[in-house]
């Protein structure tokens, strides 16, 4: 099954962290990604630019609304993600716990809902 691991952390906290800690964190992420690839679970994964660069788009009554900033103001912000292929939720949680982001912030584990499965559930 595929799972999306969403990495939430405090952008303000990261910005205030000493350079050494950032370097150490980046190296840890590199090793984590490599370990995922070697274990054959990595599908995709990227870091996201900070939420202050985010733009929110919404179309209502035919009018497009484009707003600066993220969809929701939260204490911790979505900063990156991994898409992984593992046998079950336990394995996904185990990989989430290993992510350097798990000790610096919060990981959200979301099972991917394959289109075919979704369609059979909702159009049957």
């Amino acid at each position: 099954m595929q799972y999306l691991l969403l990495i939430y952390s405090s952008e303000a906290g990261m910005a205030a962290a000493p350079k050494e800690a950032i370097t150490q964190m980046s190296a840890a992420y590199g090793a984590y990604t490599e370990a995922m690839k070697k274990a054959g679970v990595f599908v995709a994964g990227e870091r996201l630019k900070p939420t202050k660069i985010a733009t929110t788009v919404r179309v209502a009554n035919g009018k497009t609304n484009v707003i600066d900033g993220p969809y929701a103001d939260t204490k911790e912000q979505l900063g990156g993600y991994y898409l992984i292929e593992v046998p079950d939720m336990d394995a996904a949680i185990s990989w989430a716990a290993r992510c350097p982001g798990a000790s610096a912030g919060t990981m959200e584990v979301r099972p991917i809902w394959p289109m075919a499965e979704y369609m059979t559930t909702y159009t049957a």
Partner: protein
Amino acid sequence: MKAVGSDAARAVAEAAARQSYGKLVAWLAARTRDVAAAEDALADAFAEALERWPRTGVPEKPEAWLLAVARRRRVDAVRRRLTSEAGRDHLKLIAEEAEARMTDEELPDERLRLMFACAHPAIESGVRAPLILQTVLGLDAATIASAFLVSPATMGQRLVRAKTRIRETGIPFRVPERAELGERLDAVLEAIYAAFAEGWSDPAGTETQRRNLATEGIWLGRLVASLMPDEPEALGLLSLMLFAEARRSARRDAAGEYVPLAEQKCAEWDAALIEEAESLLRRAATMGVIGRYQLEAAVQSVHAARRLTGLTDWAAIRNFYDALSVIAGSPVVAINRAVAIAEAEGAVAGLAAIYVLGDDKRLNDYQPYWAARAGLLARLGQVPQAIDAYDRAIGLERDPAVRRFLQGKRAALRH
């Protein structure tokens, strides 16, 4: 009653509540095989004890207190909440038989029988330790789920399924006969050790839930050792856990950084716990039946001897791991054996023992394998291979302090 306020007193009250709750669940469940209904009937009283005893102190007869509250709690309201017929039957038991007994004599301790039911071969092995933690200690599914790294919903389902299985398949609540005791006791001990190991792997003790799990594991180990004082492996397991527990705080320095065993200051080990562990191991050894836990405790005993001799007898450790790989071989034992070989005979021999394991797919995401391999490659000056192995180990580690330690080792390779 004694008035209490501090965290320590709260822990005492909570331990007492769990102690009497477990006894009652075991006592009720042993009569009906219905663990879920027993828990259900006592849930309100247990919650009230956890809330009240830290403030009021532990009552003189904790079990009687729980029973009285379970009974008094507006029986009708509880009845409406209880979904099963069996739950109502349990309330009846509480109301009649149990309370009559409680007035003059001690409730018989049937927790061992409950543990044997939870660790029965018909119960899926992965859920045995969680089941014991829930039924004997009253830990909730969310706490257990965090400790074992599964989702609370999944853990809840597994526990419910296992309890249904105990009831539906008629798993007996009894301590097995001699002939089958060995294997069945192994399952109980394994479940206790699994709980302890999950808790012990949080060395900083920052995660209350997991740290408590180590404490609960030792508590269960003491319970089994006291109820089965003639079982050498029960003593061996308790000894092993106490040796490990004695080193808990030495695994971190003042700054919270990871300190490997070889660099730990012996003065920071808990001498009293080591003494207790040694005496348990000696007592087990007089019984003349060797086993996995005694051997692992023996390894710990050799490590602990460093506090007296200043040295580690790696040849002795290697012998113990040789014996272990014969009676309880696993990748974990094989890796520890390789490390012992490396210390006793040199890194080349150790690495050879590691490489033998190379094809085992389970090692793909097993951190200790990569850390051991990296350390040996580094000692042999094979820098690029060592860096690769360190990267795997770093990427697989979930403890930030250990991750920093490994990153430090990796960085030192360049110079």
